[in-house]
């Protein structure tokens, strides 16, 4: 296909070509590329898809040369296994170049995804990390642990920017994406807290967990019943919408509350399932909500437009899109997440080794990832690439799934092209004409002047957010090697662990856990969940 015609034709006469042109522009395809036609088809297929690739992701210069990103869009192979301590919690930053991992011993480890090496360690918690959240700019990280503590870290220097004590182990702590001084914390059997730390002193507010009800036309008995029920309602999961103007909170009664973050009042609530809501995720573009609940079903919802200025709470609707479940095995799900474009949903299975990936167009299962022989905990999809980070519950290793990249041989030799079948070579008229060497060189050099050249203008305008560049630490110390094996019991949290060769005994002679049976042991928190899990298994 010649790129020129649809550049010249008015869109009205040839809407199809105009559309393709737009696609080519969106994907920044080069019309002079020999594979242009092919790429355009792929790109068109991609953009007619319900889940277009956000422009934010199409900025890398390597995308100008490689079209792999058009073909492979979900992870297929296990590419890396990384380990620093026993990881319990994972989260990518928005750009996707760092992965934060919370450990059983309370340390937060930042992994550099370019080098697959440890970039920084943050020590301050004393118990297992239960939740992590990055600020949008990537400079601040919020971590929460089971030790009743929430810390906001400034990654410029690795120091604590703020520390919040709560009165119970924390389920989730989230940062307002547009304002790092606003934090919400959902705790175990405690109030749901909203912390506004704009001033020096942080102010805590209790956010409502009980659903919004219209109680004007009900009798006393019902009210009493409701009050009883409401008293037992706890918020178990919460998340900010991307604009930061609203909070989505899931309760142990299976309700989702939408809370206005300014007035701190519930403006809408809806019962979406019967079990406890264990996690909420919002897709990258903020249009979809993913809910994992203990009723063994993962649900996706279309989020209503919450950011319109004159929002009428009565018109809000939460529309169920898909239910993902394993009807045969009745599996329940440890964790789930959206893919980069929102097209896929990945989940790790409880008491099983596999991970499931569904696509959302038809709601069908596209892939089961199996590899490591252990139950998988958190799943985290890279914000822009087909990369999935998962942590193993037993070993605490982090598994990085990705795609295989194959070398195109034609790019090693500019004179070769990869063709499906043999092409007849047509000799050019002047191909074997003999010209003096100098003349050829001169002609070549003169020809250069015909085209303009611009070495300064950036193709991709830089985003308005100023980019944070994390300082590179040269001295992380040898104890931070990824072979580190941490398995510590309650009293000895600050102790570093020692290499496997030294056995399961720490310096003060305390035997650690029950890991001696096989592989590294789990921390107390993990043991607890494991036991809980077994109990349920029996019920089944």
């Amino acid at each position, binding site marked *: 296909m010649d790129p020129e015609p649809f550049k010249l034709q008015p869109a009205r006469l040839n809407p199809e070509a105009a559309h393709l042109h737009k696609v080519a522009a969106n994907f920044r395809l080069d019309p002079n590329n020999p594979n242009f036609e092919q790429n355009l088809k792929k790109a068109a297929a991609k953009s007619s898809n319900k889940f277009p690739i956000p422009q934010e992701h199409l900025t890398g210069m390597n995308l100008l040369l490689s079209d792999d990103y058009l073909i492979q869009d979900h992870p297929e192979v296990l590419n890396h296994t990384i380990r620093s301590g026993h990881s319990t919690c994972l989260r990518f930053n928005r750009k996707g170049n760092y992965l934060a991992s919370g450990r059983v011993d309370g340390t937060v480890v930042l992994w550099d995804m370019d080098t697959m090496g440890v970039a920084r360690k943050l020590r301050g918690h004393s118990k297992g990390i239960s939740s992590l959240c990055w600020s949008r700019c990537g400079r601040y990280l919020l971590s929460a642990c089971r030790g009743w503590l929430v810390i906001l870290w400034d990654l410029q220097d690795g120091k604590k920017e703020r520390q919040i004590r709560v009165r119970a182990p924390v389920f989730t702590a989230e940062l307002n994406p547009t304002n790092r001084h606003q934090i919400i914390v959902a705790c175990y059997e405690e109030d749901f807290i909203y912390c506004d730390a704009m001033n020096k002193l942080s102010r805590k507010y209790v956010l409502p967990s009980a659903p919004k009800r219209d109680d004007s036309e009900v009798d006393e008995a019902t009210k009493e019943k409701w009050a009883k029920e409401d008293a037992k309602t706890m918020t178990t999961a919460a998340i900010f919408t991307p604009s930061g103007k609203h909070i989505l909170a899931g309760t142990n009664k299976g309700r989702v509350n939408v809370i206005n973050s300014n007035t701190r009042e519930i403006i809408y609530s809806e019962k979406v399932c019967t079990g406890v809501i264990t996690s909420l995720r919002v897709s990258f573009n903020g249009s979809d909500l993913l809910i994992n609940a203990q009723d063994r079903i993962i649900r996706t919802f279309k989020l209503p437009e919450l950011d319109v200025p004159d929002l009428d709470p009565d018109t809000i609707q939460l529309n169920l899109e898909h239910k993902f479940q394993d009807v045969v095995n009745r599996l329940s799900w440890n964790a789930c997440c959206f893919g980069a474009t929102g097209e896929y949903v990945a989940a790790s299975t409880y008491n099983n080794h596999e991970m499931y990936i569904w696509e959302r167009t038809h709601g069908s299962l596209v892939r089961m990832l199996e590899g490591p022989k252990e139950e998988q905990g958190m799943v985290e999809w890279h914000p822009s690439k087909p990369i999935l980070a998962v942590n193993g519950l037993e070993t605490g290793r982090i598994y990085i799934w990705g795609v295989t990249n194959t070398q195109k041989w034609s790019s090693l030799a500019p004179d070769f092209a990869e063709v499906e079948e043999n092409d007849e070579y047509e000799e050019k008229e002047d191909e074997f004409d003999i010209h003096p060497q100098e003349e050829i060189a001169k002609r070549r050099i003169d020809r*250069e002047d015909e085209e303009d050249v611009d070495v300064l203008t950036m193709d991709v305008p830089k985003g308005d957010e100023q980019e944070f560049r994390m300082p590179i630490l040269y*001295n992380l110390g040898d104890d931070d090697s990824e072979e580190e094996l941490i398995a510590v019991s309650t009293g000895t949290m600050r102790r570093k662990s020692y290499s496997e060769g030294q056995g399961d005994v720490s310096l003060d002679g305390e035997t650690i856990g029950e890991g001696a049976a096989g592989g590294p042991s789990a921390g107390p928190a993990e043991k607890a969940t494991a036991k809980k899990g077994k109990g349920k298994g029996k019920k089944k």
Partner: protein
Amino acid sequence: MADTEQVAPPLKRRKVNSDDENEERSSPDRAFHSPTRRLAIRDRDIRQRSQSHDRDYAHSRSRSPRSRTRSLSRTQSPASRSRSTSSRSRGRRSTTNDGDDDDDDESRSRSGRYYSSDRTDSRSRRSTTDSRSRTTSSRRRRRPHSSTRSPSGSLPRTPSPPELLEPEPIPHPNFLPCLSLHGHTGPVSQVRLSPDGRWIASASADGTARIWDSATGAHMETLVGHMAGINTVAWAPDSAVLATGSDDKKIRCWDRRTGRPAHSVARQLVGHHSYVYCLAFSPQGNVLASGSYDEAVFLWDVRGGRILRDLPAHSDPVSGIDFSPDGTLVCSCSTDGLIRIWDTSTGQCLRTLVHEDNPPISSVCFSPNGRHVLASSLDSSIRLWDYIEGRGTVKRTYQGHASKKFAVGGCFCNTGEHDQSAIASIGSGGRATDEKRVIPDAGGGGEDDADLPRVHDAGASYVVSASEDGDLVLWDVKSKGVVQRVRKAHSGVCFWVDVKGDTMVTAGQDLCIKVFRNGNAAVRDRDRDRMEEDVVRANGAVVPPGGLRVSPPLDPEMMDADPASGAPRAAGTAAESNDMVVVVDAAAAAAAHGPTPDPVVKMEETQ
């Protein structure tokens, strides 16, 4: 070119061809160079490759027996070559622990500093290069005429904007000698300005690297540790750490503030099997790319000091390496004549650029926007490639300097650098030749604040290169015209030049480092602030650009007799006899009236 021949290189480094090469060697296999032949020959080539695979390791190292095979494979199929490279290097790696191998390395290091002459035989382009060189010199003779046209920058065939729209012409940069830094006891192989422009790092054959203050020329630190001469130095993006690569096959990272190794455990980056020749930090500072005589490109995890990837990149020493501005691409070049573009995250080769003449490439860098690649080659040319369009096309060829044996460096020089004040950028924006820029400037003042974001693409851009005759040459990117030629900046070969904003530093065979500043920066800024310039003039100091914020207090020890002219050269006192100063005055005076005359012409007159 004749005068370069006379300069006996006291040092081996950056020497890429031997003196006694056979100039008469013609190219019998030139016929193979046509595309059809190339396809036909592919089969045969594979067979040859498999033969070379079977060869003993030591054999494949000494190149003479294989030179025939190599010369064939070089011309025909870069792909197969790279594959053979990878397998060879793998074999090599497995045997490195042998004592025998070390001996082998030693012997190679003695002869290998030069390309052995049989290698030159295998390079079948001698005759071409020869004829080209003649062409070049004739071009140079013509240059004064052609370049008088060039400053206006208007290309004959591009639709030139109406004269009315053109605001007051902004003078081309005019770099004036400012400081001369002494201290190295060996030739200086590379010199680089830190990203924030405050520091100069120099690598030398004496085995040390030094850090200097770019404003005052004060010597800050001497980095001692390498066991052999240092080839290359690279700054981390935060300007706090630098890496050096040496003939002892190791790379070291240094803390700029303390002058000590950056890693607390003195961690060297060990892995290359031969001299480390070029280095580049990724823009995030977490990855270091290195190119070596062992023909491989390594990507290192800077924090841990371990190898992330080794790319079987080339079939000859890797002579240059650079990261794209967003860090997703790495570009490497080699004396095998190839420029390769790699995906940093996957390690795939995404593009290979090769010129029809297949000249050995000696250094490479990305353009400021990352869309182009600038490659210096040993046929005394610098080519600007668009690596995306088609399968890579040459957009511009810059000629006029001498580069035949040594890997002298070239780089971009932007007067409207992004990190500079908006004033400078707007000022230089006027000198635009493309339409895009003239339209916003239609008001003429360049004062339009609403257009500030456009300042980014408003800077004028130049290409600057060192030359083997000790000169520095500055070209306009678009018109290819020589904008400035600094004669005899160094006695002997000038190896490297680096520019940040209005400061330029050069390294030479004469053991010293020279700092230049843009003399027209003051002229450029004059409209914005006439006062400041008056102050400078009143002080009698030619302390341009730069000069306005960093007046160099002149240390007598810093100044020395200019080896080229024999006249004492002092930046501040500006001896009238100095030809360079004459240029300044002429340029400055002319800039006040109209377009800048070509400094080259002026200089030749004063001579």
